[in-house]
């Protein structure tokens, strides 16, 4: 019968057995078991072919046979990274140069011939930039009838100070000028205020833009104000509120 107190003695005997010390008689079975286990494991197993090869030849200085091809891979990868890095650097430099050139062109600080070419190219994209041989920034498309055309005939020596007759650049349109107006106030009755507020923001949906038309017939009470929006389609709701 195994008692609880025997466990401690068995453990001590087991440790003594492992350490090669004499073992108490009551723990002889465990000690014999340990010795038999050791005796049963005294012969190495038969090595496999791969292990036999390793035991016979070792590992060559370059590494095992399975990894002989490995040194090449880093070289290939490294070369690929080097090439890629060169391409990326070149692309980055090109982008930087292009950005600087564009910025300088937009600021109008390029040499005049270059600036002129830049402005020409930019103009094809609908971007207006300073053009020493042109009409300057913000110039609307040239009107054939304007003297700007004449300035093209000016010799290039005059290019830095282009002869630009007054009025080359049309004065900006007065802000109150209706771009799309409703019926002119003159169509209203004389006592109509007719303030012509047409603000040109017509939504083009044909709604609520018949006001101006209605005023025509209304005899001008008050608001013949030409609210007609840009899309002033009186045909939708042209009843007006006159």
């Amino acid at each position, binding site marked *: 019968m195994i008692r609880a107190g025997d466990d401690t003695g*068995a453990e001590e005997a087991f440790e003594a057995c492992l350490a090669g010390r004499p073992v108490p008689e009551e723990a002889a079975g465990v000690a014999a078991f340990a010795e038999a*286990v050791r005796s049963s494991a005294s012969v190495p197993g038969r090595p496999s072919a791969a*292990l036999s090869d390793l035991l016979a030849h070792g590992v060559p200085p370059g590494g095992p046979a399975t990894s002989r091809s490995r040194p090449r891979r880093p070289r290939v990868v490294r070369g690929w990274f080097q090439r890629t890095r060169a391409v990326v650097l070149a692309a980055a430099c090109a982008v930087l140069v292009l950005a600087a050139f564009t910025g300088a062109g937009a600021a109008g600080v390029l040499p005049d011939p270059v600036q002129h070419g830049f402005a020409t190219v930019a103009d094809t994209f609908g971007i207006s930039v300073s053009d020493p041989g042109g009409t300057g920034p913000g110039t609307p498309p040239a009107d054939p009838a304007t003297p700007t055309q004449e300035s093209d005939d000016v010799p290039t020596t005059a290019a830095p100070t282009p002869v630009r007759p007054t009025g080359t650049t049309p004065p900006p349109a007065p802000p109150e000028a209706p771009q799309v107006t409703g019926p002119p106030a003159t169509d209203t009755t004389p006592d109509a205020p007719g303030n012509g507020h047409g603000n040109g923001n017509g939504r083009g949906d044909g709604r609520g833009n018949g006001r101006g038309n209605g005023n025509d017939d209304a005899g001008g009470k008050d608001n013949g104000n030409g609210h007609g929006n840009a899309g002033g389609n009186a045909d939708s709701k042209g009843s007006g509120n006159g």
Partner: protein
Amino acid sequence: MRTGPAFDDVLAAAQAGAAWAFEVLYRDLAPAVTGYLRLHGAAEPDDLASETFLGVFTGLAGFRGDEAGLRAWVFTIAHRRLLDDWRRRSRRPPIADEPGNLAERPGGDAEDDALVRLGAETVQQLCGTLPTDQRSVLLLRILADLTVEQVAGVLGRSVPSVKALQRRGLRTLRERLEREPSAEPAHPSRTVRR
């Protein structure tokens, strides 16, 4: 068997890939590793031991430690190979029902009787009566000569857990041996260490 004072030289040579150093380490460790795998019921203990040493030798360049550390590391790899083998076979190692009639073994001198009675087959049967964890602890302590702390590292358990497993394993063994009184050697102190 121990490599001894020359261990550092052997280890350095093995890490450099020298065949003779592999041979020294293999002769030192392979019997215990193969016995550990066999007593755990591995189907092909030789093949598993070969896989273990292939892993050891190919990974030896990264090892840092002394001889005891190397033994613990080798048995850690062997134990993992064993677990892989069990998973491949999708079953636990075969467990023997009974250790057999130990009294039927031939007898004579008490010292020889104990060793003969507890022969290889009997030892395997006795190991089969132990639960796997208890068997692992006892075999690692006996065959690999590892400390409780090292066994805990190999099995991935805590030290108190390993101590408890060892205690229960020893109790199971004693109960089994008491059930077969004739298995007890007459003079164990003379028997266990020759």
